[in-house]
């Protein structure tokens, strides 16, 4: 038996080993609002930056990510049809505002309660988030307490209107999750809010 078949066999085995390696594909899609984010794919051997809708990079085994290429929308929709079909609907968000220093809703926000009740029924929501937020004036303690009381008031109003969702995540985020970022001590009425998220 000559050396040639052995060499061929070795090449064949090496081919299988290389081929059996992991492969990952990453494809950047536009956000729901049409804007496009950025994705960086990093391996030990290199980096690929995706910043255009439909760009894809492939990592095979421990290789560097391939140079990004554009994949057509049809190809994406075909290849990923099943996972795209089960994407949860984006949560619906409602912002409720209050009279200053109190747990009474402004009359405009009171009208929103019915909309929230309808949204819960329409999407058969199984989880609600009710989060009190404050601006950055007043002490942290006062803000946390008031925004918690406001969140509780909203929960009670929704339950009085027949909302029956078991998983209610109720919390006061205080100043930590502002709608409009400001410096400390700045009064920003748009940040004094209760956010209701219907999931």
């Amino acid at each position: 038996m000559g050396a040639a078949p052995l060499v061929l066999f070795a090449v064949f085995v090496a081919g299988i080993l290389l081929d059996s390696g992991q492969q990952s594909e990453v494809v950047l899609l536009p956000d729901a609002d049409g804007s496009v984010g950025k994705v960086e794919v990093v391996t030990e051997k290199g980096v690929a930056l995706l910043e255009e809708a439909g760009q894809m990079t492939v990592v095979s085994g421990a290789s560097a990510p391939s140079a990004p290429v554009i994949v057509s929308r049809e190809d994406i929709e075909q290849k990923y049809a099943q996972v795209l079909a089960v994407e949860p609907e984006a949560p619906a968000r409602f912002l409720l505002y209050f009279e200053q220093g109190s747990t009474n809703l402004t009359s405009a926000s009171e009208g929103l309660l019915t909309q929230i009740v309808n949204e819960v029924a329409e999407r058969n929501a199984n989880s609600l988030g009710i989060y009190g937020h404050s601006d950055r004036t007043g002490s942290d303690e006062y803000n946390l307490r008031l925004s918690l009381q406001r969140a509780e008031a909203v929960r009670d109003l929704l339950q009085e209107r027949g909302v029956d969702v078991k998983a209610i995540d109720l919390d006061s985020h205080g100043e930590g999750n502002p709608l409009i970022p400001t410096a400390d001590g700045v009064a920003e009425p748009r940040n004094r809010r209760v956010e209701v998220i219907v999931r």
Partner: protein
Amino acid sequence: MRYVFGLLLVLFFAATLSAAQSIGTVKTLTGSAFVERQGEVVELEVGAPLQVADRVVTRADGSLGLILQDDTTVSLGPDSELLLRAFVFEPKQNRFSMILKMLKGTFLYVSGVIGKLAPDSIELETPDSTIAVRGTRVLIKVSN
């Protein structure tokens, strides 16, 4: 001494309880899927709660979409495995962390509030790469 033991017991249960907190729920499901939690298999249905360290697995006929507390959504196609390695969403303390490991299959990841407030605290991992995201929608496919 007995009191110390009692106190330790209470602390132990408190720690277990906080570890078992729900970090999200299953929102959509077709076919069948389960979660592997502390060595046990729990079948999933719509509305089922999810916890840190859960390994979410879809069967050959299954696909599902889940939503985490910060409104991040992750969808899994058939024959897929996702490990929820870490999740911290505490805007009050300005503490955020999310580590998701895509072990195999197809995934659609859509950023939530952590992606907006602290994108650097998000890590998406595949067996051979890490993916850093800046507020976006990404498809990922991992094949063996």
